[in-house]
């Protein structure tokens, strides 16, 4: 509720920051947003599980800006996705903590105990089952290779799909035209390419199925990555 009310003022500030201070542009934003709108209209009350590639520290912010109309998020704040940022990166100052609070974040400690990670997983899985959308990075962190890295695949995303088969699973590829490898943020004024596809996962039980589901998502992400390179970005 607090996040929803605050979104009305902090949403435009974030967009202002991205558009007019960082000068980011996205040529295919309108098409991408229209397709999202059509998808959620076709499947009302089903949360999104956004699975994206990861190259910069502001990917979640960019994804939320580029995928969703402001009006859609004001009307249905449940589509504003929950994120799972690393505490060491995003929890060290009051300003960052406040932004993360408003931006629906559940902190994760990558070097934390198994129990702490499991608690984070349970929290986001619970939120997803309540109908809240999630944004996760199946590579676990920013890709060190500059491209999708299957070696880094985290099967927790497959577990999330198993935990809520009602989720609409989206593979989303986002990358600045000048983004050669991972970094803090895209270059100032960069054109951001974004595209997504719905992944119709074959859902089964067990640990092996978690791996299979995760790999299905990687397959879709790799298709999008090929499309990004094919468009001459």
């Amino acid at each position, binding site marked *: 509720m607090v996040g929803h009310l605050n979104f009305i003022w902090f949403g435009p500030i974030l967009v202002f920051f991205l558009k007019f201070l960082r000068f980011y542009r996205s040529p295919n934003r309108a098409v991408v947003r229209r397709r999202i709108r059509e998808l959620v209209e076709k499947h009302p009350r089903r949360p999104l599980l956004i699975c994206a590639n990861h190259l910069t520290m502001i990917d979640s912010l960019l994804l939320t800006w580029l995928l969703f109309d402001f009006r859609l998020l004001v009307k249905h704040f449940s589509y504003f996705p929950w994120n799972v940022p690393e505490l060491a990166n995003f929890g060290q100052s009051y300003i960052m903590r406040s932004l993360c609070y408003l931006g629906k974040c559940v902190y994760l400690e990558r070097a934390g105990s198994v129990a702490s990670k499991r608690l984070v997983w349970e929290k986001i899985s619970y939120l997803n089952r309540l109908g809240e959308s999630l944004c996760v990075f199946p590579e676990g962190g920013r890709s060190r290779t500059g491209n999708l890295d299957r*070696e*880094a695949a*985290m*099967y927790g995303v497959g577990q999330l799909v198993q935990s809520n088969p009602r989720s609409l699973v989206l593979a989303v590829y986002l990358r600045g035209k000048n983004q050669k490898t991972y970094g803090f943020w895209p270059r100032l004024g960069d054109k951001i390419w974004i595209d997504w596809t719905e992944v119709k996962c074959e859902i089964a039980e067990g*640990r092996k199925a*978690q*791996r299979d589901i995760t790999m299905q998502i990687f397959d879709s992400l790799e298709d999008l990555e090929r499309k990004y390179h094919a468009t001459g970005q």
Partner: protein
Amino acid sequence: MNNEDIYNNVVRIVSKHAKDPSALNSIHPDTHILNDLKVNSARLVDIVLDFEDTFDLEISDDDADRIATIGDAVKLVKALKN
């Protein structure tokens, strides 16, 4: 399958994911899978899946979470086989 077979298979499976090949030369039961062999923590699930296939057993999440060293894995496999 005797103890030596279990140990050798555990080492073989874990070695496939080791990022520090030099550490494989001095592998022993106390070798820490993540810290010494530099296995990516995300690959622990693959290791557990390989254990299940190789030794034909089922490992619970709680048991899997307790595997830290080569010796832990060997002990767990032995316990589940018996």
